[in-house]
């Protein structure tokens, strides 16, 4: 997963690099920098942000904000909490940006902070979910969703849409949900997810498979529930078959 410095749909209104003036008139000639606006790379923006440049902070926010917000929104399911979590994640990032040495990708570092912020919030709320450590344990007996081998399954083909998928994702345990969103929705590879989550690549693959299997169960239940409601509606006095 590569971070691009091309920012689609920015507040500047077009798909183009964020441009900012390099250096004020004072000292400009001394530094021999051009007076015309320049397009930053992520590395330049990080260096400038480490020096306290406000425009550099905004550049990094615009570069990564949409993905971070999407992750927060899918993890907590409501915009109000997602906004708080996103702001908290970026605040932690900018407080610690001076310590960033480039040993990992900046986006990986940011997403790691975001996931930690989100999971801490979920734990504090004491939602009836599995802890991250529990879901990352390779103990398939206790935590893995069961697939009844040989039992007839409800086919999902043609029945999965965005609405019921998003609803089902919200019901996943946080660990499963994180891995599924990072891999299947946002397109991160397992080695990147392993860095973000602090686990092994094998664990990442295992959790993803379990997340998909659990989603299958939830979607099948969703479809059965819809079918029951449709039958109920059909048998009601207003819609009686007689």
């Amino acid at each position: 997963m590569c971070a691009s410095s091309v920012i689609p749909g920015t507040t500047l209104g077009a798909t183009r690099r964020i441009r900012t003036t390099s250096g004020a008139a004072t000292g400009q000639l001394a530094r021999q920098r051009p007076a015309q606006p320049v397009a930053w790379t992520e590395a330049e923006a990080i260096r400038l942000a480490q020096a306290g440049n406000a425009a550099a902070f905004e550049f990094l926010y615009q570069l990564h904000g949409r993905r971070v917000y999407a992750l927060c929104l899918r993890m907590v399911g409501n915009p109000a909490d997602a906004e708080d979590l996103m702001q908290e994640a970026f605040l932690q990032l900018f407080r610690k940006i001076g310590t960033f040495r480039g040993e990992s990708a900046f986006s990986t570092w940011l997403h790691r902070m975001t996931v930690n912020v989100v999971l801490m919030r979920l734990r504090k709320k004491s939602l009836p979910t599995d802890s991250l450590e529990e879901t990352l344990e390779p103990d398939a007996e206790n935590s893995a969703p069961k697939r009844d081998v040989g039992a007839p399954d409800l086919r999902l083909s043609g029945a999965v849409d965005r609405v019921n998928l998003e609803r089902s994702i919200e019901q996943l345990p946080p660990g499963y949900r994180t891995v599924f969103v990072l891999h299947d929705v946002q397109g991160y590879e397992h080695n990147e997810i392993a860095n973000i989550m602090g686990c092994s690549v094998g664990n990442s693959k295992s959790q993803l498979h379990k997340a998909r299997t659990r989603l299958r169960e939830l979607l099948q239940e969703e479809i059965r529930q819809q079918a029951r409601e449709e039958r109920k509606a059909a048998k009601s006095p207003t819609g009686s078959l007689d």
Partner: protein
Amino acid sequence: MHCKELESVLEAEGLGQLSKDARLHLATCGDCQAYVADLNCIVSAAKTLPAEVNPPDRIWISLRAQLEAEGLIKEPVEVSEGYSWLETLGGWLKPRALATVTVAALVLVSAVYIKRLPQTSPVGVANNQPAVASSGPAKPQVISAAPASPAPALNAHPQIQAPVKTKELAPSPSESASFALSQAELDVPNMQLAGNSQVDASLRQNLRTLNAFIAECELHLKQNPQDELAREYLNTAYQQKADLLAAMMESGRGDN
């Protein structure tokens, strides 16, 4: 391969390329076919979900305010209106790395100036006029002044001499430095300063920029002779020019 084994393969390797045994099992097991088809359906549907969502603008506004409150944003110092041009050029001059050897360069240029300076008469030095050698003590009834002499009639009588212009006898340090630097600059146009023509052009451009600044400072000082700040900047500019010329000469010698 059994269904449980296929499950283990899917958990370890994902839905990508399956092994031959896994594909053989799938070809014969309807339940596993349905299972894998459903998982692929979920993955396909997930890809249609937006990976990015635009956050509300208020998040950045609030975040920025928090960054400012914590002092994480450091705004650059603004330049005041009154001395903007001086401070602009002062800012250009201060970081110049070569400014640390200006004293040595000024000594070098002064030596060049003294070496090139011919015997001069009191008149005409400040105006850069050709000097006229004294022809010895003035004889009576003989006008001994040079054509540029401002008052030749005054020299006719040995007892009467033109008033000595003390300003021209002892030029100010600034004027001396300016003249010395101008003399040293005479050789620059004909020198190849460096092997790389772009570097050569850059050095000459720097010299032109510096000359323009010096001319502006001198003009400003003529109009405002009491402006000590401008005088300080002018002296610094002379030092910078001396330093630059010394570096250009050194570069030319080294590369030629």
